[in-house]
């Protein structure tokens, strides 16, 4: 158990280290970097023109992809434990896994046939 916690302590330490590095570098930089506000410096960059209009809406097709992704991600979550124990679990698990994969693949096929995988 302690071994286990130690492992995750390492994870925490690394997270901390990353933050310390980011903070430290920025801090170090702030010592030697200039600050010179200029009237247009803080305007959003838009290839040299005045930014016009508001943000638009992103496209629905991104969403569909994201959705597909979630479904398959979930699938992967179940595949991994199985993958670790393929041998031990044997045929029965293999069959259920194949059924599982095929069912989800059906979803993919459905989306494909419905044309949501096409861009336009």
């Amino acid at each position, binding site marked *: 158990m*302690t071994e286990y*916690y*130690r*492992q995750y*302590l*390492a*994870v925490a*330490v*690394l997270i901390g*280290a*990353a*933050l310390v*590095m*980011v903070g430290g*570098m*920025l801090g170090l*930089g702030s010592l*030697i*970097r*200039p*600050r*010179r506000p200029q009237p247009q410096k*803080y*305007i*959003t*960059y838009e*290839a040299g023109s005045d*930014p016009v209009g508001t*943000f*638009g809406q*992103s496209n629905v097709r*991104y969403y569909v*992809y*994201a959705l*597909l*992704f979630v479904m*398959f*991600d979930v699938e*992967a979550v179940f595949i*991994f434990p*199985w*993958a*670790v*124990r*393929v*041998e031990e679990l*044997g*045929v029965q698990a*293999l069959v259920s*896994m*194949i059924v599982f*994969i095929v069912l989800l*693949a059906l979803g*993919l096929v459905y*989306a*494909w046939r419905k044309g949501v*995988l*096409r*861009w*336009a």
Partner: protein
Amino acid sequence: MSVLATLALDIGWGSTLAIKTILVLAIIPFGALVLGYTFLLKMMSHMQSRLGPMDPGGFHGWFQLVGDGLKFLQKEDIMPAEADRRVFAMAPAVIVMSTFLIFLVIPAGPRTIVEDLDVGVFYALAVSSLSVIGVLMAGWASSNKFALLGALRAAGQLIAYELPLLLAVVGVVIQAGTMSLQGIVTAQQDGSIFGITAIGNPFIFTQFIGFALFLVAAQAELTQPPFDMPVAESELISGYMVEYSGFRFLFFFIGEFGTAFAFAALAATLFLGGWAIPGVHGATAELLGPIVLFVKLMAIAFLMFWVRFTYPRLREDQLQSLAWKVLIPIGLINIVATGILKVAVG
């Protein structure tokens, strides 16, 4: 103090962790530097009949990237007035963190590893997916249209290729029967192909499809050509990084190349046997390990960058079709086939 006591933080263990942390801290910029210098600067230049940096530092421009780093320290830190300041500031940290965490599980020798988690690969892929959030944060907080478009593209792409990456790895996990990277390395070192143990069993032979999938998907995860539309220079300037200046920008760079380094190391570990050379064990392996890993890693990085500098980029829709219509089905079939073989043969 009792906190420390209960965790039994004996000095030896704690200082090892400290050393390891510092090593990781050092390795990431180092990896970014090595990859950036060797491939981005030098190899690319030579592919273009040029020399690349020569003057900085005197010898073949070795100082170039170091200088870049130092220079970015001295650059003004601009936050656009419209930006969402806190989110804008945090985004690079998230990306760097995601890169850092991957290194936790990559083994460079029998004991040269920060921590050998049992969920090894799974962990690595899970933390690498965190960078998507950083990217979306950066793109959104910049309040810049190019950045937003870039971030959306990046997110769309990163998630689309997260899957082939996961699926590619499953084959290896099935073969090795463990997710721990040390375990996978050992499985390859001690494995055999048709009874021949001389070269162990680098999974590249049995899992070639997985290897190919992994490389393609890693390329996409790293947003390298031909999958670099999120930062597509000729379209979106530099995508979600448009508004970042100074050292914050450098963090993206470090993140990108650090992750490239990590992915190359992962690929080397998963498919080429990592630090291991068959038959070499113990202290020798401990010594040789990092070098062997580095060589393998560089070979894989070479492949990735070679492609990077040769191909044009795909369009977003072509990228998605590639992922969904080609890679993922292949990945699934590969898993099923490996599973069946494993159950039937092994």
